[in-house]
């Protein structure tokens, strides 16, 4: 069996979706972990995003995360391109459609809408990257007051969400899409990898839900906290 045949079969394509999905999930852990540093400001009002900026600087300057970043983009690209291909191929398999849809008789709407949720996430991602990644890597950010070698990523966040309810709502919508994408995607990825044991499936399902709730809650709290001024500059 050729490798190409393996990865282009229906299960092979799923495998690619599953592996890239899990890779992106692991990225989410890093992303949410580093971003959550902004909440240190809740406990130490003098922090003013310093802890977060230090972490962000590490991510931007150390060669290990920079190297992984290339993989990350590749992972995103693969997940997105393959996702669209799988979605369109699968849709074309029906031929003539039903007059009466099955709807929720048997499956959850978000399980059937991974393509839609993924597309929303892609749109969000484009906005998100152009707002944060592009300035931090290409167009530049102001220097941090405490250390000129560090970019002040925090101020970028504060600027984005302060007095900008539209942006907060867009981000919340992005997070909601992410939540439902993860609720299905997390456990589906493991099923695709061949986990069929009932006890493990139950465990994975619980972890998946816990993970999705935690990650999305933390992400959602960021724009909200800034918008309501729970965190920000102490002045």
């Amino acid at each position: 069996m050729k490798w190409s045949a393996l990865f282009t079969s229906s299960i092979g394509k799923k495998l690619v979706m599953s592996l890239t999905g899990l890779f992106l999930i692991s990225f989410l852990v890093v992303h949410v972990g580093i971003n959550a540093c902004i909440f240190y400001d809740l406990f130490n009002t003098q922090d003013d995003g310093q802890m977060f900026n230090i972490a962000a600087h590490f991510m931007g300057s150390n060669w290990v995360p920079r190297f992984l970043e290339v993989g990350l983009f590749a992972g995103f690209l693969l997940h997105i391109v393959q996702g669209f291909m799988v979605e369109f191929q699968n849709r074309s398999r029906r031929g003539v459609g039903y007059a009466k849809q099955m709807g929720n008789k048997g499956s959850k709407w978000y399980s059937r809408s991974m393509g839609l949720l993924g597309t929303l996430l892609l749109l969000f991602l484009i906005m998100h990257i152009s707002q944060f990644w592009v300035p931090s890597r290409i167009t530049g950010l102001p220097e941090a007051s405490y250390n000129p070698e560090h970019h002040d990523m925090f101020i970028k966040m504060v600027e984005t969400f302060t007095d900008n309810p539209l942006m907060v709502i867009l981000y919340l919508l992005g997070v909601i899409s992410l939540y439902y994408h993860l609720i299905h995607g997390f456990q589906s990825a493991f099923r695709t990898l061949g986990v069929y044991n009932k006890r493990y499936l139950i465990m994975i399902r619980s972890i998946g839900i816990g993970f999705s709730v935690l990650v999305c809650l933390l992400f959602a709290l960021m724009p909200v906290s800034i918008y309501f001024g729970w965190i920000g500059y102490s002045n």
Partner: protein
Amino acid sequence: MEHYNMNLTLKVWRQKNKDDRGQFETYQVKNISSEMSFLEMFDVLNEELIRDGKDPITFDHDCREGICGACSMYIDGRPHGPWQANTTCQLHMRAYKDGDTIVVEPWRAQAFPVIKDLMVDRTAFDRIIQAGGYISINTGNPVDANAIPIEKDKADLAFANAACIGCGACVASCKNSSAMLFVSAKVSHLALLPQGDPERKDRALNMIAQMDKEGFGGCTNTGACEAVCPKEISISNIARLNSEYLRAGFTVDK
């Protein structure tokens, strides 16, 4: 059970042959007993159509006791109708009440072309079995049946998967028109038994290759197939199939 009669409106897909475009026709059926089966209601309608000089509705059916897998109607947005773990032939009219409108469509999938009206061509399933859904043993060679003890739980699970009736409801319900539940039931049935072990790699690889070739979609684990399966075959089998397939795909030496 309390017995009652009902009048119903049926919207049924009519299509003369595979090349015809097809359309819905509306029929009124009267005095349908709640004790009738769904197909007996169609018999009544067909008798009327014949008496009126019209073409009766063609549909697949045979055993009418839920085991042969021939019947295949997509009733009001659900394969085999509203009951759980049920086939169309075992659906009874007490599921409906007077005045209901019921929409009946054929299975829809490119791999299941319509032959006429509600009858579709499911020979793709046979070809998938031909690709490896068996144990290669010639008649007359086996050892004594009790020479191979098999763990009861495994034997029971193999049986639960072998109970698939090949009706195609999984394909009809799947948004991707995937036949993965069907394939996984057969792969699991044989992979769970020691007799199936020697061919397990080729079986998984070849059956999936054939499934793809027939034009079924891929699985996205939505679970609709499991919900409509008349024999309640578990979607966990698809995970087992994935495991069988990947293990074979990465270790096969050819």
